[in-house]
């Protein structure tokens, strides 16, 4: 650790502290050390992701062309699995459910998140407590959340939802056992659980909006509604895009909720892609087919990320 090098005083270190301020041999050895340590420090995480994310993708692609039941060795099956998926009504029904949950749930929870964020952006007594209450559903495990709602939706007379509806003379309704109601009941939970994170991102974005814009608008006599639509909404466009894309991606990963609440039923009315893949692999043991389904899920998400970039056209990097 002894060094013969630089004689620059501490005062000018910041200015002189570039490798090219060092004598040639020493500069080279610093660069070599930097290069070596860069690779060394990055290696464990890189290897880990190559093994546990990179390799599994390759394995999934390879196995998607085989017939495999876990017990017997996989056999090459060509495009058979993809042909099966193409005509598999249940798989596409599950995709459709994901799309419906996203199309209904995301706009509603984004709107509510924006309402909460707008109100909680100002100085109010108890602001922190309100934020926590809205955010708690996100921090809680989805399994616990699903258990709570299973109880709330209970068709018995002590199910909270039916108690409340009973007060206005409705019900009791079989929320999770009626094919017409089940998907809606699931969507309500996703909205409730999704508001908190979206509110948080909106709040973070609002802090970045220059207060002078609002002051100038105040001077011009703009009212709260005008300020909201003419200043807040345009300034939040990048945050809105970010929320939309990440919500779409996490929507296609809904699993725990379905597993606990409905197991995809009744009559497959709440089956989603991840749950369908789980059933194919671990209940029907059609592992080759399940891998093909996984590849399709991966493609959907890649296309989604790509399309959203295209459609919104670069507003993600402004």
């Amino acid at each position, binding site marked *: *650790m*002894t*060094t013969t090098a630089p004689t*620059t005083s501490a005062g000018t*270190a*910041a200015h002189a*502290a570039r*490798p090219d301020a060092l004598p040639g041999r020493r500069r080279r050895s610093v660069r070599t*050390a930097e290069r070596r*340590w*860069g*690779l*060394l*420090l*990055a290696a464990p*995480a*890189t290897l880990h*992701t*190559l093994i*546990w*994310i*990179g*390799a599994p*993708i390759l394995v*999934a692609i390879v196995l998607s062309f085989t017939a495999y039941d876990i017990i017997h060795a996989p056999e090459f099956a060509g495009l058979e699995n993809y042909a099966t998926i193409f005509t598999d009504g249940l798989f596409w029904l599950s995709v459709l459910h994901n799309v419906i949950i996203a199309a209904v749930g995301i706009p509603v929870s984004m709107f509510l998140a924006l309402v909460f964020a707008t*109100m909680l952006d*100002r100085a109010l007594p108890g602001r922190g407590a309100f934020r*926590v*209450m809205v955010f*708690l*559903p996100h*921090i*809680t*495990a*989805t*399994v616990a959340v699903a*258990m*709570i709602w299973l109880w709330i939706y209970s068709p018995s*007379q*002590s199910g*909270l939802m039916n108690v409340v509806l*009973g007060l206005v003379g409705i019900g009791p309704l079989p929320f999770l056992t009626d094919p017409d109601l089940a998907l809606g009941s699931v969507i309500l939970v996703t909205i*409730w659980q999704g508001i908190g*994170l979206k509110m*948080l991102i909106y709040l*973070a974005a609002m802090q970045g909006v220059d207060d002078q814009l609002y002051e*100038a608008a105040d001077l*011009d*006599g703009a009212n*709260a509604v005008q300020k909201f639509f003419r200043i807040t909404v345009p300034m939040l466009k990048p945050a809105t895009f970010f929320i939309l894309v990440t919500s779409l*991606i*996490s929507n*296609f*990963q809904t699993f*725990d909720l379905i597993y606990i609440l409905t197991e995809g039923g009744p009559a497959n009315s709440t089956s989603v892609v991840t749950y369908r*893949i789980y059933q194919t*692999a671990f209940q029907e043991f059609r*592992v080759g087919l399940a891998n093909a389904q*996984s590849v399709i899920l*991966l493609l959907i998400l890649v296309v989604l990320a790509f399309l959203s970039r295209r459609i919104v056209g670069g507003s993600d990097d402004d």
Partner: protein
Amino acid sequence: MTTDLAPGAPDPLAPPHRGRARDRSLRRQKRLSNTLVLAFLIIASLIMAAPFLWMALSSLRDPTELARTPMPLIPRDLRLENYSEALGRAPFATYARNSLILATAAAVLNVVFASACGYALAKLRFRLAPAIFAWMVACIMIPFYATVIPVFLMVRHMPLFGGNTILGAGGTGWIDTWWALIVPGAVSPFMVFLFRQFYVSTPSELIEAARLDGVSEFGIFTRIITPLIRPGLLTVGLLSFEAGWNNFLWPLLVTTSDDLRVIQVGIASFRQEASTDWHLLMAGTTLAAVPMIVLFLIFQRYFVQGFASSGIK
């Protein structure tokens, strides 16, 4: 910018002498709107929190109340016995211990390995850096659910473990071991990305100065730069802990024995066991939910910072 604010907005060139009166009415308006907002917020956030209140109330309720019609919304008396009964019916203490080990391991491993990689990508120039960074960003986009089956197969066919041959056949590999629970989730590409962001904002001059003083590259990373991003370490640690504690599908797939079952899987299996004993089920659910809620209340600031940049549950 301001002139196109609104049709129908008051004329900005209106005579200035009305200023003070308008100020007063503006203030009154503001107070009124604050009151309305507050009222709305109280009602709305109570609705948001209602499911949790209902969980807590139900976990303390006398089971005979559940059968009564109409059921009283507030329990007559609070029965803490529900908790001891739930603990007697299923080994929740073991479940909680397992979740604690899993979550702690995920936090420590992510902090160690992701910080090293994040630092290298942010501060050190080496040939593969851009490629590794692009790879990490691509990995963030790949959902675990799309790779869960091959990862499961890899774990099951881990050579020389669980009775497997060197080719990974014949036994159960890592299934039902701590290896399976901990190793595949030891490094999350998102945490690498997050660490890189934290390290980018540290001053490079400090690194150069330390090099001049002859501090080793490893020493610069561990003793000089990393202490500057303590909030980042805490954020990544907490987010990894939360993900570990709340994880469900992976532990469900790779554990079979009660000894290795984590609390989220424990709750799901307790549901079969207790079927309609909702006072017990809610006691168990409370046990699974409350630790994260408490942790969040204590470290809110760090959680919020991490969540706002992730956007993904």
